[in-house]
């Protein structure tokens, strides 16, 4: 047996690994779950890819901005699927009524969150790597051509997706499956404000303030600068990273507060509606 530690923040890699293993077993047991990871990003890619192709044939600007929409849709999927990968892994515990088993095991909340973060990356890799290859084959768009910029985009989008996923999981844990819809829809509130497909400048001035408070906005602006002007905007990435650190810290604090509240109202034992 491992020696006891009283700290809720003590992190044990073997318990994180145990939880990752649990989700890997689950993915291995269900090919439909794996297919689902690839299906929607591929559909999105083809819809936006063909639209981009059509516009490029009819507009000089879009011909010059080749790949802008495809780049946007792929980065959007990193944000959306990253959050979904986190939240759905958590929802699996609610669907299988296993949450109580985990919550009275030695698993710390921080280890649970760490395992969900790892699974978010695993699920993203399963879904996005085939789709980025399809983008090269069908539309000649190589996301990996962004080089170091892609790493900066990826890190920032992933951090935002985790922050949102942590809060969503906390709300579902505290309020039950009635709040499950949040996991599927919350990112679409961010979408118009993060300016995925258009520059921030098209928004009304008052809305631009809100837009610039969202880290993904900096990533999508950075992506457009790279595609249109061949310029890597490090300043945008640093600002996004700083904002992400703040949001991530807030998300973890909110999650722990929701967990405490769940213990007070008894919702950990009854993980239904």
């Amino acid at each position, binding site marked *: 047996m491992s020696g006891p530690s009283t700290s809720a923040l003590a992190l044990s890699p073997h318990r994180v690994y145990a939880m990752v293993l649990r989700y890997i077993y689950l993915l291995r047991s269900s090919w439909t779950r794996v297919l689902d990871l690839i299906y929607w990003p591929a559909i999105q890619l083809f819809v936006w890819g063909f639209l981009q192709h059509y516009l490029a044939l009819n507009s000089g600007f879009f011909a010059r901005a080749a790949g802008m929409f495809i780049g946007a849709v792929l980065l959007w999927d990193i944000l959306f699927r990253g959050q979904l990968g986190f939240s759905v892994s958590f929802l699996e515990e609610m669907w299988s009524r296993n949450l109580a088993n985990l919550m009275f095991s030695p*698993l710390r909340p921080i280890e649970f969150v760490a395992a969900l973060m790892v699974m978010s990356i695993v699920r993203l890799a399963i879904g996005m790597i085939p789709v980025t290859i399809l983008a090269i084959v069908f539309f000649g768009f190589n996301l990996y051509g962004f080089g170091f910029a892609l790493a900066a985009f990826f890190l920032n989008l992933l951090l935002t997706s985790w922050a949102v996923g942590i809060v969503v999981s906390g709300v579902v844990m505290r309020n039950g499956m009635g709040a499950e819809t949040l996991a599927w829809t919350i990112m679409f509130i961010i979408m118009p404000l993060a300016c995925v497909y258009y520059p921030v400048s098209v928004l009304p001035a008052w809305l631009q303030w809100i837009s610039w408070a969202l880290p993904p906005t900096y990533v999508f602006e950075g992506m457009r600068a790279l595609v249109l002007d061949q310029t890597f905007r490090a300043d945008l990435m640093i600002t996004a990273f700083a904002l992400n650190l703040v949001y991530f810290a807030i998300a973890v604090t909110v999650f722990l507060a929701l967990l405490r509240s769940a213990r007070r109202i008894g919702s950990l034992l009854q993980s239904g509606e």
Partner: protein
Amino acid sequence: MPAIPAIEAENLTKVYTSKGKATVAVDAISFALAPGTVTGLLGGNGAGKTTTIAMILGLVEPTSGHARVMGADMPHERYRVLHRMNFESPYVDMPNRLTVEQNLTVFGRLYAVEDLRERIVAIAKQLELSDLLDRPNGKLSAGQKTRVSLAKALLNRPDVLLLDEPTASLDPDTADWVRSHLERYRAEQNATILLASHNMAEVERLCDRVIIMKRGKIEDDAAPGVLLARYGRDNLEDVFLDVARGRGEFGRGEAAREAAQ
């Protein structure tokens, strides 16, 4: 120096508040369970048994009072003792798509069980699960699932085991088999077991002590033989009905108050 109780409740109270209305689920109960004992927690639906167990597990925070396990205040000091405890309930499932072996592997790793592979083989043999190890949990019968949950609960050789209706929905033969296994486990490990049950025969057979709850309070608390003599009954079922219906000299909590004095 007296031994630290394996489980202790001290004025343990839980009040749930919803839409401004307060419901007292557990009302200032106190008891201490010595190490190596088996105690039955009896009571009708809504008596507060599950909430009491949940507070001992650290899943529910008491409104006031304390729940302690091996001296650790729950839920604040839970990480001192959670690796030495476990729980089984038909109302908490294990992932259905994972095989029995995968489930036991995941929980064995969470509890840092040493020589996990050997432990899984051994416990599967004890609980007659060897042929089911590669079967998904969702494809098992109710009785098989209960044995898997029991295997999970015993995997880390817990010093304190909490069971919430461990034989609910089992046929009499399987239920008897589970009880025999629990008796063996208690004898071999000197484990402390707290058992919530509606099955009086089960409690009479397994328990050294019985705590009867009603509307969140302890109505009576004694050894099964003492309760039978006190109420002049032949079986615990009749004692339970006397308490539930407020009949007899010791109904309405008099006995508990007398014992406390």
